[in-house]
Structure formats: C-alpha cells, structure tokens
C-alpha cells in the first residue's frame, strides 16, 4: 500500500453518498447531515455516523466504570455441603484450570478477560487516533475496528454459562449455585462495548488522510461521474 495516500476517490469528496442501510449510492452534492433519506429504503442518509466520537466515548466510559464491579464482585456463589466458595470471573478461570480443563479455562479467559480488555483499549486507541488526526497505519486501524466488530458479542459466553449453572445446580443442602451481581455488571459491559463499537465510524480514520478537497460542494455537483477502479476480488468468503 501507498502509506498515507488514498488512491481511491472517496464518496464525500465526489458528492456521492452511500446509504448505510441498503447500500444504494446516490448523487447528493449538498445533502445536509440529517434531512435527506434514501429513496430506496427510507433510512436517513449520513455522510458520517452522527456524533460518532462523542457517543462512542460515552458508551466506552460507562463500560470502563462497570468493568470494575464486574471483576471485583462475585459472579457465582456455590455451596457444596457446608463449604461455600465465591467466584469472581478470574477465580472461575483459575478453578477451571485447576480442575484440569485447561482448554476451557483458555476459552473463558479469552472471552471474559482478554476480549473485553482489548476491546476497551483498542476502541480508546481508535477514538484518540481519530480525534488527534493521526495519519499512521490507517489500514491497520481499519482492520482493528473490523476485528472489534467481529468479536464483540463473544464476551457474553460467561454470562450464558453462569445462567445455565444457576438453572441446573439446586438440590437442597448438597449443592447450590447462586449468581452474584458481578455477572450483571459484566453483561452490561459487553452490551456497552458493543454499542460503543457500533457508534464509532471507521470512515473517520481515513478522513485525516484526505488532502483538502479542491472542489467545493457546488463544483462537485457538476463533476462528471467518477470512474473508480474496480475493487479487489477475493475467492473465498470470509467469516
């Protein structure tokens, strides 16, 4: 790749706008931010997601705050005979490991600890990079965002696991499992980080690289249809 130069023309500078919902490409020379809607699917047209940075920060900060009770408070209180053990997310992973199921310990550790921490860190990095107009590594940052989108909901794994444990393990005095408040906080963290990821607009990553637009809005309106190059083709379906 060519580093900090964008080879491909961008919709905003060509007076085009792509509908986020149905993908229709429209000629919208001076469409203001909120008034127009797509003639095909009726959803509002935006050049960029509205208030992307502020919304993403708001969700992210809420997630960071809730991440503390999610890790400190117990997620599971299990009683076996007269022996009560209180598990947090981390101690649950440790006890899985001690029981010999290291593979599951790795899965749960990845889904419940690594993914949320990386997600929060990566999203904060992306937001800072966009706010400060960083020009380095846009492709890598774009890929980081796609990874965030893809892995977001996998952190819900522990929440489901604990819900099933609570359902099955209740036979009187022998063994009893109760959920702790930590799991509610954790579920909220997962939802909030997903919302933060959805609010962010990855197009902002590339806006910092754009050379100041030579044509005004009026100029772009009369420009001839652009003839951009075809996209790269890949043989296999991702995902």
């Amino acid at each position, binding site marked *: 790749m060519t580093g900090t130069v964008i*080879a491909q023309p961008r919709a*905003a500078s060509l007076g085009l706008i792509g509908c986020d919902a149905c993908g229709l490409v429209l000629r919208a020379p001076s469409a203001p931010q909120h008034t127009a809607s797509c003639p095909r699917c*009726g959803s509002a047209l935006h050049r960029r997601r509205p208030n992307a940075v502020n919304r993403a920060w708001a969700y992210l900060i809420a997630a960071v705050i809730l991440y503390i009770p999610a890790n400190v408070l117990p997620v599971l209180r299990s009683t076996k005979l007269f022996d009560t053990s209180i598990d947090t997310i981390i101690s649950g992973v440790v006890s899985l490991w001690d029981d010999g199921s290291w593979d599951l310990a790795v899965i749960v550790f990845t889904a419940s600890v690594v993914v949320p921490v990386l997600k929060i860190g990566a999203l904060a990095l992306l937001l800072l990079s966009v706010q400060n107009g960083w020009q380095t590594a846009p492709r890598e940052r774009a890929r980081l965002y796609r990874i965030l989108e893809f892995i977001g909901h996998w952190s*819900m794994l522990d929440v489901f696991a604990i819900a099933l444990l*609570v359902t*099955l393990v*209740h036979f009187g005095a022998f063994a009893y499992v109760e959920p702790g408040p930590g*799991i509610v906080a954790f579920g909220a963290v997962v939802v909030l980080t997903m919302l933060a990821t959805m609010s962010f607009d990855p197009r902002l990553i590339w806006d910092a690289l754009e050379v100041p637009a030579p044509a005004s809005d009026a100029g772009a309106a009369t420009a001839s249809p652009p003839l951009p190059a075809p996209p790269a*083709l890949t043989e296999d379906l991702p995902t």
Partner: protein
Amino acid sequence: MNTPFIEPETAVAAEPGLVVCEHCDAVHQRPQLAPGEAADCTTCGALLYRRSRLDRDAMLALTVAALIVFVMANAMPIVTMEAGGVVTQGRLTTMVSAAWNSGIGAVAAIAAATVFLFPLAQLTLYLYVLMARQRQTLPADFALAMHGLRLLRPWSMVEVFLIGVLVSVVKMTSLAMVKPQAGLWAFGVLTILLTALSTFELRELWADDDPPPEPHR
C-alpha cells in the same frame, strides 16, 4: 422511520454501477461477482459485498429449516443433570426463569433476547422478505423488515450461547452426572444454519431492478 421521504432538492439520481465502502467511504465500480466470490475494498481491506453460493430459493429453504430447528432447540431439554436421584432438565426457558428468580433479571433479559427473541425475529423476517421478493410487488413493510434484519444481526448470539453451555457442562461434571440432550444438538445445528444464512448479502435483496417498494410511512 421518522425521517421524511427524500426531498426533491437533495434527492438525487442513484448510481447503480458504483459501490461505496461502508468502512472508509471509498468509491468503487461494482463488478458482477460469481457465486462464492467476495469483493474487498482496496483502500481499507473491508468487505464491500459478496455473492453467496446460495440463491434466494436456497435461502428460503434454509430459513424454513432453521425455524424448525429453532423450535426443537427450545422445546427439548439442552442438558440433564442427575444428582442424588434427582434429575434436573435445563431448557432455555427454565434458564431464563431461573436467572430471573435468582435476582439477575438483567441476565435473564439478555439471554431471552439474544438467544430466543432476536434469532426468532431474524428468522421470521428472513422468511418475510424472501417470500416478499418472490412476488411481483413488494409489500409496504418490506423496508421495515429489512431494517429490522440489519439491526438484529449483531445481537443474535446463538453461537455464543452454544459455547457457553458447553463450558458450564464441563464445569458441572465435577458436581454431578451431566448429559447433553437433543436440545444441545439442535442448538448446534441452528448455529450452523444461522451462520450459513449470514453469508447471504442482505443488500442483494434491495438490488433488484423489480418494482421499488411502495413508500413507507
């Protein structure tokens, strides 16, 4: 949809030969893809669009199959556990009510929504839009159903639930006899079917040149 229909002065001709990358706003020409091919953005590397190996009829068949499996997955027990002569069955419904009753209502709501309600809504809407596409005119609700599908996509978590169940089954083996039941297999099949459905480009359903949907109010 609270936005007014497009205003004449901002409304504008569509450019059917172009595609705009959702992730970086780069404009590309839109080539015809062969089934199974995908087009990536040359600027940022994101997927622009793809053509599934499945056509619409295959999608419809998969959707119907997934709905049947969905019913099975929720009607049958996922796991049973035996301890001290007592057998406990775990279904999704019992999970949700147990979570609700033990003071973690938020978790119950999340599980009910992401494993039951959203996947069911997704499959129903798939059925609706795919059947609507077979007719000459699109129903007025077509746009609404398509928006619903787009919004639901990230919030359907059947595959995460499946792995979560497997994790808790292993956790419980130290406590009691835990046996996977038919519901678990059904959830496995449902995960596969939903994954296959998600390879289908939803936007492809808009793209047809057939009559445009009636304006939606």
